[in-house]
């Protein structure tokens, strides 16, 4: 069972102390909704956990997974990380090969995210919601224990949101951990809320 532990975590962005003295312990099997006002540091927290931002103070560690936290993390950020000149399938195969997933999961990911009919279309031709679905398909092709999802429901229709919730439930049901920065209500199993803020402006 994986455990994500933060001790006295502090984050400074552009000279502003976003949060300070943050402590938490989350375990595999949980979906954690990270809530808070705009600017409270939800995105910064996810990037910090992913190792994409150095903490100002404190530490964050993932126990029960590989030594390198970055290799255990799957991040779906605000930007979808897609190349418009590549087809839907090429984008997904690239993510899979880059992040160490299995190409055998690409077709099932396309079907699950309702993108199979669009597989050979350049990603630049997709709508915002379809691009989001393609980014989320990375969760399926690459099996990593810790998911960091930043506003994952943005631009998604109701059907796609339900698919996403099912995927997250399956992930947590098999011992995975999902941290979800959101303002939306999440109908997920094993959901707990972690509210941050207090020094946000």
């Amino acid at each position: 069972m994986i455990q994500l532990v933060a001790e006295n975590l502090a984050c400074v962005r552009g000279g502003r102390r976003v949060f300070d003295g943050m402590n938490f312990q989350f375990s595999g099997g949980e979906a954690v909704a990270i809530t808070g006002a705009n600017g409270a540091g939800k995105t910064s927290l996810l990037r910090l956990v992913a190792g994409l931002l150095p903490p100002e103070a404190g530490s964050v560690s993932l126990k029960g997974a590989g030594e390198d936290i970055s290799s255990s993390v799957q991040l779906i950020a605000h930007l979808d990380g897609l190349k418009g000149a590549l087809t839907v399938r090429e984008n997904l195969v690239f993510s899979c090969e880059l992040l160490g997933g299995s190409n055998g999961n690409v077709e099932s990911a396309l079907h699950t995210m309702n993108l199979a009919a669009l597989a050979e279309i350049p990603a630049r031709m997709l709508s915002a919601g379809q691009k989001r679905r393609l980014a989320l398909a990375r969760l399926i092709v690459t099996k990593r224990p810790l998911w960091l999802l930043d506003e994952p429901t943005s631009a998604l229709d109701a059907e796609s949101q339900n698919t996403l919730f099912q995927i997250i439930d399956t992930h947590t049901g098999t011992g995975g951990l999902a941290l979800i920065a959101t303002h939306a209500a999440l109908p997920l199993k094993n959901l707990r809320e972690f509210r941050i803020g207090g020094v946000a402006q």
Partner: protein
Amino acid sequence: MTGALRAVLMRDLKLAFRAGGGAGLGVVFFLALIAVVPFAVGPDLPLLARIGPALVWLGALLATLLNLDRIFSADREDGSLDLLLLSPAPLELIATAKGIAHWLATGLPLVIAAPILGVMLGVEPKALLALSLTLLIGTPALTFLGLIGAALAAMLPRGGLLVAVLILPLTIPVLIFGAAATSAAVTGPMSFGVPIRLLAAISLAALVAGPVAAAAAIRQLRD
């Protein structure tokens, strides 16, 4: 790990050669620059043959710099730099793969086009192969030194200007030995072996130092 590197290499090549990718831009600029020189200098073949090597190397340098700043900044703008940082492959090797893709898309076409341009500049047929050889050995140095500037350009505001300011001084030795080797092959009487060996040494050093420095810049400046 090799799968990740192959994926980065193939993706960058696809992006470069598809519409708007910029792979042809460098070689078109190179051809245009060299094609207009005889009109500016006049039909003086001995003069063109004498300044030809320097012109070819200046053209290669400027053509390489053209889309160098996009190596990492395009990935940063669309969020795929985060994916690269989350890959199990070391960032230094990913930077190497991106450098190789850039050279295959920008440097190699210059090498292939060089003999045609050599003819236009009055270079003797027996020296055309040597002209291409110097570019083949020297242009990787331009790309891999440029990786450092490309990383800084991606991570700093208005970093595009930095590429030229930072990279041009580093490329001066490449320019000196590249032009010297080409001159030796075209006009003599200097030895061809000494400058070409120094050029190869610079390329090998850049191949090692460029990706390491670029990865360090990205790690230090990420936000």
